């Protein structure tokens, strides 16, 4: 530190220091007066859980990788490496994730949420463009794990297990890996070359992938294959159907089958006018795909209101922009040649749709049912202890089913059905599978307290509204499967990363160092290293706490 006790003046007669010229009193420094004794509370640096990281279903520490990205340049690779510690699919999730992180972002209350998802995509695309590779696995443990299902959960688990040195075999019934990322999500949302690149990078860790080989009897496979543990992640690919009176006369197809067909390069026979029945994201994917295939605006029929639709609002807006029509509060009563009889509904006091007895007729060459999916749990037959309720497999805190050594995750287990959740399941399951293989008791780590907006001092954050990602023009969106949402350029991604408020974690803004009236905040290291409090002189005024922009310092009572 630059503060120091002045050097002794030159020695005078009799060995006493000589006073400086023209000063009769010996001068001393106030450093002799250790004002830390005045203090009743001391400031301490803390680390809090930012709401983005708290909200991420994939378990990403969002703020940690944004922090690296803020440097730009070489920081992008550090950010990507930090990101893939949890999630090996940044380019995919930067496109298809519904980003709960942004909904939770404290910056929402200041201006707009940080565009976390666009930065994630930028980093993912940079990694593909520059050929960044995942870390090499450690020495092999000799343990073998069977992962059933090459979707987001299975591949995420395979990745994390490979990084722990285990041999992983991934089996899937489809011809290519990716699960719903490939066979459910249309190419205009997720280009296949992006998906392929990220899957290949994971497989390159030495994971054995066997496509087109469904697992019919898990108990048999485990015994025959000599596996030490297994993870089931077969997803939920079976469409729920309903009977439509007269429906046999009309062309009725389920959304999962239709989307899978499109993804496999088939041309489904839809006719001209398509009706989609349902209100989830799958319904929107089906309708938007149909628009591109038929050239005619499909109609989505949903029995409740727009507000109660489970689909994500931004998807609804994009669908409307592409010309998709919506019939809220409507159900299909019957189908007849080329026509649908649709009944109007009304919400009762409990918000449940009730029939009104009013009908209208709609043209319909085909009806796509998007009424939810269920999991095919037949491979589990014959395994003792596995419990199923509401069509999904019950798992404990470690993601283990009732059968020892058999874990499960993704859409076939309870929880919200989205890719980020599945990736999170895969990561968690891998950790517990690893613990189980090593005979170590594992539990979910305790979580820090989440820091709220009120704990920030937002004065210090300059106003900076969010950068909007450019969209493909409407005309091309209505006829092609080109990607609709474009990425941010480097400058915009950097700007977006720097909008992060760093809630609850020091980001080296030097405010504490600058505002201390007693010079009692120390900078022991280079920028980015933690500060320290000089408790010999800190009077405990608390200005550093009040003026910390991100709430990363708190006052703690001294023992008296």
């Amino acid at each position, binding site marked *: 530190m*630059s503060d120091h006790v002045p050097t002794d003046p030159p020695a005078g007669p009799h060995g006493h220091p000589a006073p400086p010229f023209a000063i009769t009193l010996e001068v001393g*420094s*106030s450093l002799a007066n250790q004002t830390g004794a005045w203090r009743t509370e001391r400031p301490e640096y803390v680390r809090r859980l930012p709401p983005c990281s708290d909200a991420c279903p994939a378990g990403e520490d969002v703020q940690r990788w944004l922090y690296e990205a803020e440097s730009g340049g070489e920081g992008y690779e550090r950010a990507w490496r930090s990101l893939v510690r949890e999630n090996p699919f940044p380019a995919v999730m930067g496109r298809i994730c519904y980003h709960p992180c942004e909904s939770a972002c404290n910056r929402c209350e200041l201006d707009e949420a940080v565009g976390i998802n666009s930065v994630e995509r930028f980093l993912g695309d940079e990694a593909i463009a520059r050929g960044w590779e995942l870390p090499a696995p450690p020495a092999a443990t000799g343990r073998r794990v069977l992962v059933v299902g090459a979707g987001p959960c299975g591949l995420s688990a395979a990745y994390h297990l490979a990084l722990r040195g285990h041999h992983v075999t991934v089996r899937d019934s489809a011809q290519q890996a990716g699960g719903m990322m490939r066979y459910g999500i249309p190419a205009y949302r997720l280009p296949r070359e992006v998906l392929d690149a990220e899957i290949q990078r994971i497989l390159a860790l030495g994971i054995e992938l066997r496509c087109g080989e469904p697992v019919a009897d898990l108990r048999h496979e485990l015994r025959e294959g000599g596996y030490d543990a297994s993870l089931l992640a077969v997803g939920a690919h079976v469409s729920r159907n309903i009977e439509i009176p007269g429906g046999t006369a009309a062309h009725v197809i389920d959304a999962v089958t239709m989307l899978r067909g499109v993804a496999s390069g088939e041309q489904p026979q839809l006719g001209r006018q398509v009706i989609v029945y349902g209100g989830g994201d799958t319904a929107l994917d089906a309708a938007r795909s149909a628009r591109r295939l038929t050239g005619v605006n499909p109609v989505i029929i949903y029995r409740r209101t727009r507000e109660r639709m489970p689909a994500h609002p931004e998807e609804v807006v994009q669908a409307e922009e592409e010309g998709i029509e919506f019939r809220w509060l409507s159900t299909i009563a019957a189908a007849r040649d080329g026509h649908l009889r649709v009944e109007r509904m009304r919400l009762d006091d409990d918000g449940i749709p009730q029939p009104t007895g009013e009908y209208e007729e709609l043209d319909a060459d085909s009806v796509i049912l998007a009424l939810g999916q269920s999991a095919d749990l037949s491979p589990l037959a014959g395994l003792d202890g596995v419990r199923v309720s509401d069509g999904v497999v019950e798992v404990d805190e470690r993601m283990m089913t009732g059968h020892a050594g058999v874990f499960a995750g993704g859409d076939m287990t309870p929880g919200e059905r989205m890719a980020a959740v599945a990736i999170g399941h895969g990561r968690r399951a891998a950790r517990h599978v690893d613990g189980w293989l090593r005979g170590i008791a594992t539990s979910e780590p305790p979580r820090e307290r989440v820091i709220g907006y009120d704990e920030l001092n937002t004065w210090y954050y300059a*106003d900076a509204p969010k950068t909007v990602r450019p969209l493909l023009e409407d005309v091309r969106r209505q006829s092609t499967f080109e990607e609709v949402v474009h990425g941010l350029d480097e400058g915009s991604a950097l700007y977006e990363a720097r909008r992060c408020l760093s809630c609850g974690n020091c980001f080296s803004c030097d405010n504490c160092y*600058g505002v201390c009236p007693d010079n009692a905040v120390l900078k022991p290291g280079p*920028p980015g290293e933690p500060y320290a409090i000089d408790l010999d002189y800190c009077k405990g*005024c608390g200005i550093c706490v009040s003026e910390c922009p991100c709430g990363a310092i708190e006052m703690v009572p001294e023992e008296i």
Partner: protein
Amino acid sequence: MSSAPFYQTGTFAVGNRLLGPGEASVQSDPGRSNAITKGHRACQGCGEALGARCALDAALAATGGRVIAANATGCLEVFSTPFPESSWRLPWIHSLFGNAPAVATGIAAALRAQGRTDVRVVGQGGDGGTLDIGLGCLSGMFERGDDVLYICYDNEAYMNTGVQRSAATPPAARTATTEPVGGHPGNAFGQGKNLPLIAMAHEIPYVATATVAELRDLEHKVTRAMDFRGPRYIHVLVPCPLGWGSEPAKTIEIARLAKETGLFPVFEAEEGCVVASSPIRRLRPVEDYLRLQRRYAHLFGDDGRPDVIARLQRLANRNIERFGLLAQAGEDSGGDGRRDLLETLAASERGPQ
């Protein structure tokens, strides 16, 4: 305020890890001078200790460490130099309460006689030593054109002697000599001096105001002042937890509110003309500022004086208009919300008189 690229906190924090050495502020520099070192006896949360360190560190950085300081009597002198200790890490002299500008003049004259142009002189004092006791010496220093930067650290009363009123004590504030009694509680309206305007009337090269809420701004002004020769004056608002009855931790927040309410206009003037003012980013009613200080406690509660608060709001509104403190729409922050607030403030003025 100096501009920095947009790094998370824009230009409002003291520093940023991503800034290069040339862009970083003096106060964020681990090698800053610390003109006042640790162990000084200023109260917890002292605004003056912070303001003086920041101002002098900037002066030292701007001159390559060649600054001599002449100090008036006051808190700053008392808390930094109890015998036998000194907190000063630059050549520093204290003579009398009212003669700091004259001492500084003498140092400048001595340097001129020696032909030394590299060493610069700073005179400094509190509001009592500057506005009341030393005003004659200061006015003379301005008039003669002496090459001195004079910095007043204004905490709005005589604090170390027990919080007596000075010419900088604002209207309605309670001090030991302006008790909250009678029909006009606290300090009187219509008295006191506005020294930045008095300095401007001398048509000296540079006058500026600042607060400890924006250290980069204060640094910028001290650095700018060093570009000029001749008399210069900087007036820094430094909240005093002891005299204002505020929490030590809120010193900077209160300074910020002084600016954001318009009660303390932050501006720069050259040759007698205002050349720049710091716009209010988040306009707030004066009540938000007053409530944090016990010296205004008599204005609130059951026997409160909304009429007095409304008068103070009028003073703030006048500053906002006079110094152009509201940025144009579309600039940083504000928007419609600010217009609504302005209307609310105008309505509050029409309240009980």
